[in-house]
């Protein structure tokens, strides 16, 4: 692999971009006033109330949606793995499966 090949690899580019973001942090640190913890400054913000910072349970339609997400993400990847010479009937049947899944899940 050539030097530019290594540098253009997504992982390297990501690392370089992270370094660029860190430069912003450095610049911010250079011009910002130093932080002093006064009073309740470091406490969790909750409109001035005293709350214990903790993670809260999630009771959303999260899992309902997560299921469809997984289904469709896999569907999209399967459809796309070989766009040049994809078999039309195979792709078509995947499409039908995806459509049926959405309709069943949103029937009510």
């Amino acid at each position, binding site marked *: 692999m050539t030097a530019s090949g290594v540098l253009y690899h997504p992982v390297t580019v990501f690392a370089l971009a992270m370094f660029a973001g860190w430069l912003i942090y450095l610049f911010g640190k250079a011009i910002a*006033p130093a932080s002093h913890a006064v*009073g*309740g400054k470091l*406490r969790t*913000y909750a409109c*001035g109330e005293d709350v214990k910072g903790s993670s809260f349970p999630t009771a959303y339609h999260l899992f309902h949606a997560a299921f469809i997400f997984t289904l469709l993400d896999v569907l999209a990847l399967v459809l796309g793995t070989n766009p040049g010479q994809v078999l039309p009937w195979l792709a078509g049947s995947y499409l039908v499966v995806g459509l049926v899944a959405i309709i069943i899940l949103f029937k009510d």
Partner: protein
Amino acid sequence: MLNGLVKWARGKSPWVCHLNCGSCNGCDIEIVAALMPRFDLERFGVLLEGSPRHADVLMTTGPVTRQIRDRVIRVYDQVAEPKFVVAVGTCGVSGAPFYPGYNVLGGVDSVIPVDMYVPGCPARPDAIAYGVLKLLGTLDPKADALVKEIESRRDTTGLVYTPSEMAEMRQANETSLGQTAARS
């Protein structure tokens, strides 16, 4: 040069967070009116932020009640430096007419430092806008020039008070009260 840039940026972009310390909602509505298209505070860079962590200017309305005292101090602490406080409305300035009430501690400056007073019941939206601009004028010479221009064009007496003007006025008030008491 970097310092100049930072100073300029601070004067250009005050993000406002609104805090109700026990107001009757009159001044709150006027603050919202000041942010409306008619006055368009965004042309001075003012944005209304939800979180005090994002804000530079804390706009407080109403007198400080016993119930809210600790919360006001906590929220003020949680604003990141550099921070400014604008007390909006006569209640926020002095607590009046609720001041010696059993549940009212007085104006906002009885709990946290205040950088600009905007009296009025309720304070007018243009007075609020002018107060914010005057606060910016203490940071940025260009905003100060704008304030001077406004003052040359219209009468702005009594629209807003800086902390030093407020202290002077209170001093004068106390003296005259003392004289009245001595006479009677």
